[in-house]
């Protein structure tokens, strides 16, 4: 079976800034592939190139078995794109937006009307159908955006940070919609800065950092790269912190914050052991927080720097 997306040696610079430095990836048909990375990693550039918006400097891209540069329109007919910034027409109503897409796909009047009605229903937009999109909430705009992408029944869908800026409820309903799409045989290429999102949805995850893929695999494989989580213990005085650091030698102290970061996988048993040692030494802990592995930890494990550092150095 042909891969839905196949990329070899993709490179792109804007001016003298190298944005993508040799990307290789393969996405099997009917799966969700997630490109994970912090702001400025180059995720959007990858989506723009794969969706024919921007040309690559070099590299080989095949989508649905077709060479991208040879027949961009063939690829455009096979894909659907929902970008990071809502690609809806604010002056038109929700229904008019869908009809606009139907017209551009030459569905014909009756079929277009039918398709718009079905999608409005499916995306819970029936009530808002006759209102201008300007008045929609962020979550409604995203749903309409995705609905517009689906009018042409694309086989491959690109979603660039589909849930960034959404409230938790809208995020979960978006995840539900994405799962339904894939169960219908569609391939989804998704970018996100949330490990949880990639974890929830993706069959395969690739971590993008400074324009390079630094890790690739299933969510399980990536988590194995992360050495568990940690427990943060906050103390009230430097003396107490010093004492704690002696009792718990695996911990990393932060003197200015009066915090000791102790590696811990967060299981009840290991927490109980930790608490017992704290009790034995009569340590006075002001605050205890348990951290499970997150994107920051994955980043730290595969790149040696955290996502926060990343933002600080790229801006």
């Amino acid at each position, binding site marked *: 079976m042909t891969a839905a997306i196949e990329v070899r040696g993709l490179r792109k610079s804007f001016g003298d800034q190298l944005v993508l430095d040799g990307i290789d990836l393969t996405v099997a048909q009917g799966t969700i592939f997630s490109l994970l990375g912090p702001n400025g990693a180059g995720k959007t550039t990858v989506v723009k190139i794969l969706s024919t*918006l921007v040309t690559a400097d070099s590299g080989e891209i095949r989508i649905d078995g077709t060479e991208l540069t040879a027949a961009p329109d*063939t690829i455009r007919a096979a894909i659907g794109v929902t970008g990071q910034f809502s690609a*809806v027409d604010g002056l038109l109503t929700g229904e008019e937006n869908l009809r*606009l897409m139907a017209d551009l796909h030459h569905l014909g009047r009756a079929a277009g009307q039918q398709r718009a009605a079905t999608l409005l229903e499916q995306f819970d937009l029936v009530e808002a159908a006759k209102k*201008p999109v300007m008045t929609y909430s962020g979550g409604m705009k995203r749903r309409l955006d995705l609905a517009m992408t689906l009018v042409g029944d694309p086989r491959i869908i690109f979603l660039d940070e589909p849930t960034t800026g959404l409230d938790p409820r809208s995020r979960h309903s978006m995840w539900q919609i994405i799962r339904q799409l894939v169960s219908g045989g569609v391939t989804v290429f998704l970018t996100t800065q949330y490990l949880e999102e990639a974890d929830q949805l993706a069959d395969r995850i690739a971590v993008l950092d400074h324009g390079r893929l630094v890790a690739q695999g299933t969510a399980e494989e990536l988590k194995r790269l992360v050495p568990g989580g940690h427990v943060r213990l906050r103390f009230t005085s430097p003396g107490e912190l010093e004492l704690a650091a002696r009792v718990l030698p695996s911990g990393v102290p932060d003197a200015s914050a009066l915090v000791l970061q102790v590696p811990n996988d967060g299981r009840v048993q290991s927490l109980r052991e930790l608490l017992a040692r704290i009790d034995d030494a009569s340590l006075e802990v002001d605050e205890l927080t348990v951290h499970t592995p997150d994107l920051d930890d994955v980043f730290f494990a595969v790149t040696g720097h955290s996502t926060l550092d990343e933002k600080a150095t790229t801006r």
Partner: protein
Amino acid sequence: MSTTTPTIRPLADTATMLRRNLRHQQRYPSMTLSTLISPVIMLLLFGFVFGKTFQAGIGGGGFDYLDFLVPGLLLVTMGSGTVSTAVAVCTDMTEGIVARFRTMAIFRPSVLTGHVIGSLLQTLVSVALLIGVALLMGFRPTATFGEWLPATALIIGTSIALTWMAVALGLTSKTPEAASNVVLPFSLILPFLSSTFVPIESMPSGIRWFAEYQPYTPIIETLRGLLIGTPYQASDGWLAAAWCVAITAGGYLWSRRSYNRGTAA
């Protein structure tokens, strides 16, 4: 695997985009209204308020100042249409939906042709409005049907040319404010430094030289000759037509290049 090349339908897609732009004009009427009304205000201002002084200033000349003025104001009307076109195009390019259009297998220039036809219709409506108000004010064109025909063709041709130029300027502007400034030569400077309001013989020599050779003057002279029967040379007509073709071609090529820049065309 179905790797069929999609069929591209230029007319259907242009019609779809035109419908979209006409809805925009209807939903966001303030721009549309100012485009329609500002030429009429100019007409009232120069026709009523300053008219007598201007008529005396250009020595009567055996014709009415209003008749002299209207053909020139037609160019002012077409010129001021460039503002709303450039702003609309520039605003559109900042919208995510145009990025969506670029990722679809549609007739690629349809985003632009939709804007051009939509703006053209708007300009022609405001030209008609201007002529209507002028007629009410006492504008009496002497043109026969055989003269109205080429005059109308020239009005449409000039509108197409200015609209394509406005689309190109809108595409290359970074913000809508910049877009409304960058069309200033077409909307304000060229109309004033031409024979719109006064015969160019009455201008200071440097400006007169500019007014003589800039594109609006031969177009105005031709329209004036056709509509109110002032003497004009056939060469003015050909020059006017040549300017229209040149500006259209330049605006179209520039627009196409800006729209496709950096993408897989």
